[in-house]
């Protein structure tokens, strides 16, 4: 398998991840969002596995495995049960409409392309492409967190942002500790999910943020 083909597949997978991030932004139903996120994690694990194969760095396989089983399967299923048990609001309210968010998303991707390509003339092509796409996934994840009102979709936004990071880490040739970091991150995410469950922030989070949560913000009472 010559170098070009490897690069094309990696590029394809990363591009796919960006596309799915866009689809994540598009979702307006909760369960649709969770399925899309599962897909997102699945493509991520594929991409990391492929990077492992390309750089023949065995430890990356572990990261891919973690991404696959934890993020693609366990967490979406957990969130789905959570949404059902705590009957969290099924409708996803966005700030400023989906169309505008998508537009903004495209602008973000363009920005990350410009920034990354402008910045990394020195590095080799594979790393540059990977980083640019990873940055756009991160920015899209961030955008999702910023434009969503309810808690679960914000958490999903954060996890997609984190997927972007794992992609960047895997893309960085021979970066040590990637495995440890992905483990650390997954612990973080686990906390997120437990947090929702423990703190019973059903929908008192941002959907009704003007009344419920405001009441508890500092110095308001």
């Amino acid at each position, binding site marked *: 398998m010559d170098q070009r083909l490897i690069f094309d597949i990696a590029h394809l997978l990363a591009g796919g991840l960006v596309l799915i991030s866009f689809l994540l932004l598009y979702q307006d139903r909760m369960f649709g969002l969770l399925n899309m996120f599962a897909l997102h994690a699945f493509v991520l694990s594929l991409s990391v596995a492929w990077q492992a194969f390309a750089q023949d760095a065995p430890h990356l396989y572990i990261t891919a495995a973690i991404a696959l089983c934890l993020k693609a399967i366990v967490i979406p299923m957990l969130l789905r049960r959570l949404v059902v048990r705590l009957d969290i609001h099924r409708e996803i309210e966005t700030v400023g409409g989906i169309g505008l968010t998508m537009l903004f998303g495209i602008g973000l991707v363009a920005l990350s392309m410009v920034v990354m390509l402008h910045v990394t003339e020195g590095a080799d092509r594979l790393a540059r492409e990977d980083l640019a796409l*990873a940055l756009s996934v991160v920015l899209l994840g961030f955008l999702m967190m910023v434009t969503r009102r309810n808690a679960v979709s914000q958490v999903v936004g954060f996890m997609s942002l984190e997927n972007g*990071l794992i992609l960047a880490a895997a893309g960085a040739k021979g970066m040590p500790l990637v495995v440890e970091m992905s483990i650390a991150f997954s612990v*973080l995410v686990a906390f997120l999910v437990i947090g929702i469950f423990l703190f019973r922030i059903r929908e008192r989070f941002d959907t009704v943020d003007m009344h419920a949560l405001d009441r508890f913000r500092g110095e308001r009472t």
Partner: protein
Amino acid sequence: MIAFSLDGLALILLIPAVSAAVLLTLPGYVVTSKLNVLASFLTLVAALSLLWRRPEGGLLLHVDDLNIVFIVLNTFVGFTTSAFSASYISHEVEIGRLTPAYLRFYHAMYQALMFEMNLALVANNLGLMWVGIEFATLTTVLMVGIYRTPEALEAAWKYFILGSVGIALALFGTILLYLAAKPLPGMEIEAMAWTKLMPRADTFDPALLNLAFVFLLLGYGTKVGLAPMHGWLPDAHAEGPTPISAVLSGLLLNVALHALLRFKMLLAANGKAIAPGPLMIAMGLISLLFAALMLYRRRDIKRMFAYSSIEHMGIIAFAFGMGGPLANFAGLLHMTMHSLTKSAIFFSVGHIAQVKGTQKMTEIGGLTETHPVLGWGLVVGVMAIAGLPPFGIFMSEFLLVTSTFARQPMLAILLVIGIILAFGALLQKLNTLAFGEPKGGLAPVEASYVPMFSHFALILAAGVYLPAELVAWFQNVARLLK
């Protein structure tokens, strides 16, 4: 892999880790609080031993001039806070605000936090430093939410979300830095070790370095509490238990700032990259002026001091942004003084809140009459934090303003305006709190005054006379910082 010798470096990590594990198993908060104080004391002794016998750093952990300052400071304030938290927690349980069930992991988490902070400080490997700070965030989130009140939960959740986003950005910055270091195939592990990166800094790819510094500045800046990313800080301080507020503003902000300094040194070493100065100066000034103005309308005493922390972090960021030996010296001195003063203030505020049963400043008054020691402690603390002469903070602010005036008079004017604004607000609030006719309840509290007044003694000493080797120590670190 690490030469496992029982030297100071290993000890300051082992003691908190082991004690955290031990405290996990023990029920009953009285025993654990005593153990907690003992463990912190041992860590302090280990850290002090580092002063004389400094082990040579490995790839993962190392001790150099920069982080020895923070290690000693952190362990000392950690020890005094643990002493304070012993009496604070026992009182909180008495009045029922905290049940032993909630406290089950409190002391374990405290020691875990100490472990993570020390890890982040001594980490030579940038990834390890990131993991340290990340887990420190997690533990403090759990501690902030310990009261289980709606406000505490909201504050914890906000802290968690903002913290993890910050951490994610910081991770992306670290990855970019790793790429900018253009590691040779065999030496990946060296490409993450800070001591190895420093000498090769000027070979890095400047543009990628800039991008990395942007992400790192925003990432770790969130943990430092600089202006645009400060959202979590006031509520976390106000809603969490006071020992945690003291730990947060005394230690955690310093650890994050230490990480930021590490990357600033890397950037400064590389000539072609953009100077990190202006960015940090801008962020510093914004947070200074923003926090100073926010002080005026605060109603909750701990939230007010949280904004004062943001303000001082702004001043410190400004100092390190200015660069140059004198400004860096002022910044380092200010960091030490700020963490000592702020934690002492939180000690007195903690007891005051317990005595008065509330944190609303409108319901607290006449402290110097009803509780002279606490009242005058608060007065001394606020005078110190506002930057009045006999204390250390004045010394560092004075050095900073003079050095800034010599180079950038316009910036110096903005700096002084910010300091004066904060000064006005603090004294205005202090007036109603400490003097005037007594208001609020008079619950009996056997407070531990030793930690508070030991801090004040140190600050006063630093304000009046800085021992020669301390100055020399700070100076060569300042040169290191360029």
